[in-house]
């Protein structure tokens, strides 16, 4: 994704309105940070990002479990756990877990590299979600196979969005 695509504002009238309001703020000495929504990733970008990891391999549905609240409390910090069904023996283990999203500015969320010493094919972290969207988790096993699952998450804005101090 090049710089221009990242900066593209889909709704120019909204942008003008925000800058107009912000201009007054700036004149009075306050320079708050506005969390305007930048360009979104598209389903095509999501597919490309997944393909960057899986290549031409067929990705099977299953084995992967994505625990994420269906309705998030706050899109800035969303707890997420990905667990993969695997015996986790030296011959049969999870090599890596890759998480993607559909509508953030970028399709990648994180890549996690495990291995035969992991004991359990599970990781947890906290992520940011810009909008209600689909999250996809792909796991690569030691035999080279890819497995995936996806979850739809609803994200709402806080009732009164907060500005920086």
């Amino acid at each position, binding site marked *: 994704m090049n710089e221009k695509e990242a900066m593209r504002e889909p709704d120019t009238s909204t942008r003008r309105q925000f800058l107009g*309001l912000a201009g007054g703020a700036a004149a009075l*000495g306050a320079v708050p940070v506005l969390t305007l929504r930048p360009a979104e990733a598209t389903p095509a970008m999501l597919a490309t990002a997944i393909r960057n990891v899986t290549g031409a391999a067929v990705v099977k549905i299953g084995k992967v479990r994505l625990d994420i609240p269906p309705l998030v*409390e*706050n899109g800035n*910090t969303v707890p997420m756990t990905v667990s993969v069904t695997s015996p986790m023996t030296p011959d049969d283990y999870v090599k890596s877990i890759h998480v993607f999203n559909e509508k953030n500015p970028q399709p990648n969320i994180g890549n996690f590299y495990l291995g035969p010493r992991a004991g359990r094919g599970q990781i947890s972290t906290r992520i940011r979600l810009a909008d209600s969207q689909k999250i996809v988790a792909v796991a690569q096993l030691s035999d080279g196979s890819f497995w995936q699952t996806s979850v739809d998450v609803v994200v*709402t*804005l806080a*009732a009164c969005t907060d500005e920086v101090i």
Partner: protein
Amino acid sequence: MKSIPAIIGAALLVTAGIVAPLLAAEIAQSARRSGYSFMTPDTQAIQNDDTANPGMLSVLDGASLWKDKAGALSKACADCHNDARVSMRGIAARYPAFDQALGRPVNLEQRINLCRVRHQQATPFAYESHELLALTAFVAEQSRGVAIETGADPQLEPFIAKGRDLFMHRQGQLNLGCTNCHDDNWDKHLAGSAITQGQPTGYPLYRLEWQSLGSLERRLRSCMAGVRAQPYDYGAPELVELELYLMSRARGMPVETPAVRP
């Protein structure tokens, strides 16, 4: 004075239908609920685990600052107050408290700065600075689990009354008083967010919306901006009186600092 920032979703407040008359009844002791109880289990889990709670990072920083020599007198908090676990236990549970020299209440942040100026001859920390938040979080955390008892001092009475008036009066372009949501409509929702009782049991707290630790004053200023009122400046007597009222309104509830809130 800072200008009023643009508020996205102000229309949502209007459609929430909060037009009830001032019912101004204080919440009974048995019905008092911490903001914790309004959160989803996932967010509660972040507060429950000290190694998952980002607020604890600030508490650790505060523990380190507690021992730092500061000011012209090159003294650390520890030099007078020794082990904070002993000397600071229960302190946050009775703040804001009356300061004899100033003749008015001060909150914990102001008390820390007064100590810096009076006893360390050091410059006060800026409001919402990393250092002030860390020290306040560290001191307040020593009272975790202690029941709030703010406002017992009779000298505080007139200031609690002022704070109560501030809590009750309608303000801002949306013409709402704190009481309209936090006394009359808690447990309902405002555009997808739960309306709590507004009990300040866990400040300074890690707010997911901020993605950082922040003070009660920061939260109050956000609320005021939310009803499109001009927020008071940090450290303003009105904010301290409001904090004093809110803490006395929360009497009996345990301190939770550093809390996590959405």
